[in-house]
């Protein structure tokens, strides 16, 4: 990330390019170089069986395909969103073997045998996951683009609290963490919402945490 140290720098690029402020300057500069060089070497293909939401699909993919692109472009599961494509915004968050990860920073071929859950696997419009219902009830979004990532992240974050995994704001490393607002804000910091629906997102997660307790 750009790093904090770099606010002036990012702002300059922001003015020039008009891209999201959390993207690195390098991320903005890259596409031309990427296109120019990929033409040189032929892509390498690899077969992989992916278990997404309980359904196994056999794919033959360019090894460069991220899990995110496999989901969206090959399996047409477009619920998972591409924001920054560099692990900075959290829109691509999915749950792999029970843990949330950024699907943009992992290769599809590295996930043979893993159980991947996307927003489509958590619930359906007719049968919403409690976290999905809570986001609707508390208005935990505006444009909705970051929402699938927020919801997958929130579901896994509550599991992390239940498993006793501490966070940066846990006062006592040896105590069991609780789903307080401060804990939720810290644990959800990997999911950026440009509409700023954060306080409603915390309310939604708090409600689900309360229900689970």
């Amino acid at each position: 990330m750009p790093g904090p140290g770099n606010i002036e720098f990012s702002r300059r690029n922001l003015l020039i390019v008009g891209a999201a402020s959390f993207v690195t300057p390098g991320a903005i500069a890259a596409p031309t170089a990427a296109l120019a060089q990929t033409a040189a070497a032929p892509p390498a293909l690899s077969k992989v069986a992916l278990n997404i939401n309980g359904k196994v699909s056999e794919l033959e993919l360019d090894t460069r395909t991220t899990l995110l692109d496999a989901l969206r472009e090959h399996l047409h599961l477009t619920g998972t969103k591409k924001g920054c494509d560099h692990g900075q915004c959290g829109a691509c968050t999915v749950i792999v073997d029970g843990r949330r990860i950024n699907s943009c920073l992992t290769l599809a071929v590295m996930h043979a045998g893993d159980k991947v859950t996307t927003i489509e696997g958590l619930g359906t419009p007719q049968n919403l996951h409690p976290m999905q219902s809570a986001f609707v009830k508390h208005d935990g979004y505006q444009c909705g683009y970051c929402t699938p990532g927020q919801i997958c992240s929130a579901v896994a974050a509550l599991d992390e609290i239940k498993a006793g995994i501490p966070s940066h704001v846990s006062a006592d490393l040896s105590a069991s963490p609780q789903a307080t607002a401060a804990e939720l804000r810290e644990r959800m910091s990997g999911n950026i919402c440009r509409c700023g629906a954060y306080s409603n997102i915390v309310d939604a997660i708090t409600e689900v945490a309360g229900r689970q307790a």
Partner: protein
Amino acid sequence: MKPFTYERARSPAEAAAAAARIQGARFIAGGTNLLDLMKLQIETPGYLIDVNGLALDKIETTPEGGMRIGALVRNTDLAADDRVRRDYGLLSRAMLAGASGQLRNKATTAGNLLQRTRCPYFYDTNQPCNKRRPGSGCAALGGFSRQHAVVGASEACIATHPSDMAVAMRALDATVETVRPDGSARSIPIAEFHRLPGDTPHIETALAAGELITAVTLPKPVGGKHIYRKVRDRASYAFALISVAAVIQRDGSGRVALGGVAHKPWRVEAAEPDLPRGAKAASAGLLADATPTRENAFKLLLVERTLGAVLTEARA
């Protein structure tokens, strides 16, 4: 991203041998730094060796009463390990201060140590950068250098090492265990693991070509209060401007390492006897010979004040 062949390693020794033999080969662990850089064509390996299946993901007690942390242990698991929380709280705290929940679930011990700088000019392929393209110059000298190094820098590079975990490892006297392409193992003290930039900022560690990290070991616990304080531009999910990792004993003695100030986790053992005399005395020794730029000179005072807060917290 440049096309690459993908292979899963079968054993540490085979992985190291293959990485040395195949031109342009790289290991991939969590992928959270390497893939980021590959997308930007800052890293362009033609061959990826996936080390995730190597069963290097255990945390064990050593015969000396210390800990052996597998190279593939995820940052989340290490930070949450009961023994680490009890005996090496500094390490838990440092890891929990870094990145996000999602990233820590993927990031590994070895990958974290080897993550590359966040210098914005290193990330911008249109800029000269001796680390990315040796001999091309350094755009940070005379550029925006607010987040850059204040000690140990050179005319060739003023980048910092971005890891939080590595700063705690330095304070805890960790040792990096590796296997070399010929199958032999070696141990590298963390103090010698990361290099200062000198004339060759593209050479960042003591690792030889193909050398694979298998584990990081910690000596037996040293007790004391473990405090990691990270100062950054927002409360969470940002790299450090500076950070202080300290273990302070009841009599005021202790050890301290700094993050965000140098090309490597920064520790000056000779300054540590000054810790009982307070932050001003200790940071003078820690930051002796500092060469800040106009934009990052604030880091000197920030270190002193943060160390002061750490020492106060340790006494409480």
